[in-house]
């Protein structure tokens, strides 16, 4: 296999909430705890998990939008963990982000052309005519018309706005795009269009995606590999088909069995989880899933399982994998 484009080693990120002397005291919310990850060029890595499991935080930390508390991020062979924003700026052209809510990620007071041209101007792409030509090319790539450039974001539908977000992200020909739930704010019919557009762009522009989603069906269509997160840790990572068809972690199994089955004749054993996920401000010791795991034993309560290879191209963090 080729060298990874992005390596995350033992990333941790803690957010602070509340005041030290306020009611309830200061809370440390551990959004990421020792997350390690490798992303290979040209692939799409899915990132799934329920709300609050830290998948968006991971995406933003990998792009240095948040500074990690511990761990290392290596992008294209360069350690960017402690790099200053100024030193990082040229690299930013190579790693981009697509946001969940396209209406929030596009400044409502700027025209589409201005928004998409912003990265080109900042990175000194060239003269005005060159930028204009690139803008029209980009609009064509994402399936919009060049005359849309002079409109405001609010004049577009959600799907079109996400296309604008994509156009801005690919403007500088990046190698990595982290898409943070790019389709979950869209109608189901539009979701497929955007997923297909992203696949086309990947093919044409040699992109690598980290695709964050909570919808397993979307992940299944979009991603070759998938990482499952629970409460700030990656519990399982492997080829999408392998993970989806034969989940090894009990949480993955529960997640997959929660997807509605379109065929009513197909009966299957369902794992139904009890209770709510514990608060990330006070994560359980040992395996973070032991409070809800159907197979938890004494060892799970004290000893934290590390991600260990399990079969081909798969790693699982569980003492008693399925």
């Amino acid at each position, binding site marked *: 296999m080729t060298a990874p484009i992005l390596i995350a080693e033992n990333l941790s990120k803690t957010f602070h909430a509340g005041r030290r002397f306020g009611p309830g005291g200061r809370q440390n919310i551990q959004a990421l705890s020792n997350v390690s990850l490798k992303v290979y060029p040209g692939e799409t890595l899915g990132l799934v998990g329920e709300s609050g499991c830290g998948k968006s935080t991971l995406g*933003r930390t990998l*792009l240095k939008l948040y500074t990690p508390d511990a761990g290392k991020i290596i992008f294209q062979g360069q350690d960017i963990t402690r790099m200053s924003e100024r030193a990082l700026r040229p690299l930013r052209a190579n790693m981009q*982000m697509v946001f969940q809510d396209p209406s929030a990620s596009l400044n409502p007071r700027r025209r589409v052309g201005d928004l998409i041209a912003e990265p080109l101007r900042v990175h000194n792409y060239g003269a005005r005519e060159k930028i204009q030509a690139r803008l029209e090319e980009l609009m064509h790539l994402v399936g919009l018309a060049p005359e849309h450039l002079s409109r405001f974001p609010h004049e577009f539908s959600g799907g079109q706005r996400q296309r604008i977000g994509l156009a801005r992200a690919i403007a500088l020909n990046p190698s990595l795009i982290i898409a943070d739930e790019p389709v979950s704010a869209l109608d189901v019919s539009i979701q497929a269009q955007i997923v297909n557009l992203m696949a086309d762009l990947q093919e044409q522009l040699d992109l690598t995606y980290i695709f964050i989603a909570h919808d397993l069906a979307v992940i299944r269509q979009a991603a070759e590999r998938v990482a499952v997160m629970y409460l700030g840790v990656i519990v399982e990572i492997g080829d999408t088909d392998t993970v989806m068809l034969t989940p090894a972690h009990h949480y993955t199994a529960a997640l997959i069995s929660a997807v509605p089955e379109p065929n009513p004749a197909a009966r299957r054993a369902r794992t139904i989880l009890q209770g709510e996920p514990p608060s990330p401000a006070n994560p359980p010791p040992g395996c973070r899933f032991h409070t809800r795991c159907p197979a938890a034993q004494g060892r799970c309560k004290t000893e934290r399982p590390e991600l260990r290879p399990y079969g081909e191209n798969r790693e699982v963090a569980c003492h008693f994998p399925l």
Partner: protein
Amino acid sequence: MLAFAILIVIIAACLAAPWYAQNISQSDPFASNLDGSITLAGQPVDIMQSADTGFGVTPIGPTWTQKYFLGADDQGRDVAARILFGGRNSLLIAAGATLICLTLAGLIGIVAGFSGGFVDSILARILDILWAFPVYLLAISLSAVLISRGLKLGPVTIDSDSLLIPIAIIGIVYVPYVARPIRGQVLSLARSDFVLAAVCLGVPRARILWKDILPNVITTLIVFAPLMMALNMLTEAALSFLSIGVQPPAASWGTIILDGEGLLYTRPAVAIAPGLAIMLTVVALNFLGDGVREAFDPRAKIRVQK
């Protein structure tokens, strides 16, 4: 739009004050005229008439003609002309104070909201302290000191009867009321997805501030402007009424109301007319504020087209 038209008329009328005094009312609105008389319907009429009952004199009431249209005040001066001259000061002070207030508040709000951390804490505490003073108490104590002595700050000397004093005082006391919401807006803008997107695109901080944050803040400030101007106008009137705003013989709508206070039973027009002028202006400014807000909402354009 009606509000805007009314404001234009008011401003134009106030600008025309010297012309009105010279050609229509034909009297000096800043000099007392206790012995004069005018001709009304062929009869000479004293401007200061002896009172119907008891002692003293009562100024002439509204004549509804060229001279003394709204009557005279207790110095025998033409009230209509004084209202036009006073309106200049009232509008000038309100506008100047608004300018000072919005500039300071915008600056403080943006710096506090965008830098965050220590700077933000310090600025926020200063605003809190300023906010903790009752506006009028602060304004009254500031003007009491400044108007009795004037201000000498190094090379800058401001006379005690300068309009700059009420402008500065009114401008400063309302700074926290604008700076707070601006700071909040900048704070939320700085965390918005589109600023995050800009960071992600490698846009330098200064450019983010200039291109993404400032346009949004300027719009808020512009929306604030007419509303603050209305508020400033009321404050100016209140301070002048307490004789700590505009100093005689100069006039403002507040001082004319004060002149009219003693004549309230006999010649109520002296106090009512500037009161109406203030009311009309403030209402027009408030409506204008609403209109401006809608005009600056990019999403509201759809409504206009329909």
